């Protein structure tokens, strides 16, 4: 997996690509939690993500809890078909902030 950091205006967008599974989730966890230390709000863009397992969802849940504790927010966008279904059956659509695309996520950060 590769993870790209982008900045749109003053908003950080973290963009993982490939597979987020039990092999790659430790490094993604480190990356995401480090970025959350330096900013209050960030967007996680899943446009290039092919696959997520429970190991990847675990990282998102930890990061969302961490962001809430520090009054920040983490917004996830661009969930592709099967990944969206995994979010739905996990109950994550109601506990995480999910937007359809990056524009909607940026609008949410600004709100």
């Amino acid at each position, binding site marked *: 997996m590769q993870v790209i950091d982008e900045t749109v205006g003053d908003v950080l967008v973290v963009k993982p690509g490939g*597979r987020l*599974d*039990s*092999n790659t989730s430790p490094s993604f966890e480190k990356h995401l939690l480090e970025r959350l230390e330096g900013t209050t709000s960030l967007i996680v863009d899943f446009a290039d993500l092919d*696959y997520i*397992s*429970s*190991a990847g*969802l*675990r990282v998102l*849940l*930890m990061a*969302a*809890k961490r962001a*809430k504790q520090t009054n920040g927010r983490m917004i996830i966008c661009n969930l592709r*078909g*099967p990944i969206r*279904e*995994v979010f739905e*059956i*996990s*109950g994550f659509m*109601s*506990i*995480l902030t999910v937007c359809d695309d990056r524009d909607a996520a940026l609008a949410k950060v600004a709100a």
Partner: protein
Amino acid sequence: MTERLEVIIANRLDEIPRLAEAIEAYCETANVSLKAIYNLNLALDELITNLVSYGYDDGGRHDIVVRVNVTDDRLTAEMIDDGKPFDPLQDAPNPPLDASLDERPIGGLGLYFVRTLMDDVRYSREDSRNRLVLTKRLKD
């Protein structure tokens, strides 16, 4: 009818992507939907991650055999391992899906995915091996 796929992997997490690629290639030639392929690969990933993490005491190399078969109306996978006896249908409560962010425990989703995304899961212990048969219906 397409021939069945058999893949033997070692008990290492980094074998999971190789298995997923083989299943994807096999299923695509059999015209299985991407969603069904994703769901089977996710179920196998969760089972293998669990097995590799908790299923062996000796730190040694073990083979895990996965066989996949597509028929007209179903996708079937068989997984055989010589890890500790473990039935993924037992002693695994479903995660509290309605809990708030603060109350939601970290973890517990893996085996829930196996039970939810597959239409049928059968476990048996045969000749000191765990045998799981996962079935996904391809037509509703």
